């Protein structure tokens, strides 16, 4: 469904994405696991086509078409959407209207179900505004609910667990699994090993490259052994990084 091929992005002369290759199959939850500053959010922005994030080199293919020149809304109309790590707050836009934006016309009962899927009581939230009166965690849940309501072919979820309390996390993850079962493929971007447990495959990202892709359990173990203890996080020595890439491919 999604193929990212030899992708590069330099910002202010610094390579942020550095020859990244990744593919997400139809029906898959694909985790991208990485420490802070490794390029996770940049990857999300590149795939969604956010302003200021255009690949220096490489291709982003969605259902066989290169989407690199398409605008955010054109990509959304093709079936890609993004739940932002820090979702924008929009004064005067009610939750019920935000969840109804996609043009799917989900209907009020479906909107209520979407809120319930992320652990929110519809009666408490439908008529509230998507503005700064919501807490960070509430806004994150509404962002996820809006993606569920949209039913895109591919949902990019950028750190869906940030700002979510530990008690509520399982219900959020369950919502993602339900969304996937309803037909949405998911690119699940996170620094949390717990979150990628729901993925079918997981890729480890460091310094803008994918070091390794595999099943969640073994990839998380590899991540712990090689990334959690790495002294070069955020600014890896390139010899070291190349070794890790080789090591990742072998294992």
């Amino acid at each position, binding site marked *: 469904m999604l193929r990212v091929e030899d992708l590069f992005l330099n910002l202010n002369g610094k390579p942020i994405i550095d020859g990244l290759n990744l593919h997400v199959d139809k029906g898959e939850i694909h985790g991208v696991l990485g420490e802070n500053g490794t390029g996770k959010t940049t990857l999300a922005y590149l795939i969604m086509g956010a302003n200021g994030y255009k690949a220096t080199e490489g291709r982003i293919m969605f259902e066989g078409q290169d989407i690199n020149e398409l605008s*955010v809304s054109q990509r959304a109309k093709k079936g890609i959407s993004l739940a932002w790590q820090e979702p*924008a707050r929009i004064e005067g836009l009610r939750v019920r209207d935000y969840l109804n*934006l996609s043009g799917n016309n989900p209907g009020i009962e479906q909107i209520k179900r979407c809120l319930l899927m992320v652990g929110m009581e519809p009666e408490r939230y439908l008529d509230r505004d998507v503005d700064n009166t919501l807490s960070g965690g509430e806004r994150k849940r509404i962002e996820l609910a809006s993606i569920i309501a*949209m039913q895109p072919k591919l949902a990019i979820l950028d750190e869906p667990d940030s700002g979510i309390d530990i008690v509520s996390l399982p219900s959020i993850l369950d919502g993602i699994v339900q969304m996937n079962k309803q037909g949405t493929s998911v690119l699940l971007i996170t620094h949390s090993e717990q979150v990628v447990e729901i993925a079918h495959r997981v890729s480890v990202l460091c310094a803008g490259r994918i070091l390794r892709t595999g099943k969640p359990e073994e990839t998380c173990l590899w991540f712990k052994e090689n990334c959690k203890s790495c002294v070069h996080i955020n600014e890896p020595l390139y010899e070291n990084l190349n070794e890790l890439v080789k090591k990742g491919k072998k294992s």
Partner: protein
Amino acid sequence: MISRSVEKEYAGMVDAYEKAGGDRNTLISKDIAKLVIHENKVLGADGVSGIKIETKETESGVNVHFLVEEGARIKNPVHLCFGVLPQEGLQEIILKVEAQDNSEVSVIAHCIFPNAVKVIHKMDADIKIGNNAKFDYKETHYHGEFGGIEVIPKAKIKVGKGGVWQSTFTLSQGLVGKLDYDFEVFCQEKGVAELVVKAYGKGRDDIKVWEKIHLNGEGARGLAKSRLVISDKAQAEVKGETYGNAPHARGHVDCIELVNGKEAVARAIPIVSVTNEKAKVTHEAAIGSIDRRQVETLMARGLDESEAVDVIVRGILR
């Protein structure tokens, strides 16, 4: 007996109001208190128990005395409808409002100028809110696309002990023309004042907003809030002033102006002043283009850029 010409003018006002998106039943229903004025003619004045409305037609408008009796709690909102339907005209409303102690009322004013090419609408209001009285006033304007109108609403509002004044002035349909809004509130002990202005400037609209709140009594609270969107060659200036003059007075000035166009100009001048060491007044003002992240958030749901901007603008003016 209602004359044919009055009946015709009333029907014209109701039609214009409905075309602007209003519910005509509010101006027709006998159960709702209302006052309908076209140019300098009073077309209808229906009171309800607890409210007295007296009017006097003048050469250029109407003098109105609006009284809410002591302890009266008015269930349904009172509707005021002011308008000038011809292309040219002058309407001066001299409004005297008295909400007596412990009364409570909500008033919705519709100001309709759909064909204005050279119209001036002035309102000069003297408003007294009694002790523990609550007065909610919403004024919405419906203008046409010619922009030939000057709107000059001015009000001095005195809020008694524990009284509440809340007003929202909205001008987002049609061209503003020229707006010179000037509301000033004086709050006594534990009085509350909330002034909200929402306007959408387009074409060559010229908007001036001046909100002043004097928190003179202990524990008085005030909010001067404005939300403006300025596009094309329109310009806007917002002055928000709040004075904390008594212990535990709390005030806030909150201004957001969105500039959507290279030739649009927006200014904000917040003034906060404290003359009592136990008072606190804060302000925030933000002027800028529409936030790119907000636009992209909506575009990621499949909206085109112009649709996304429209949603943001409608939201801020809602």
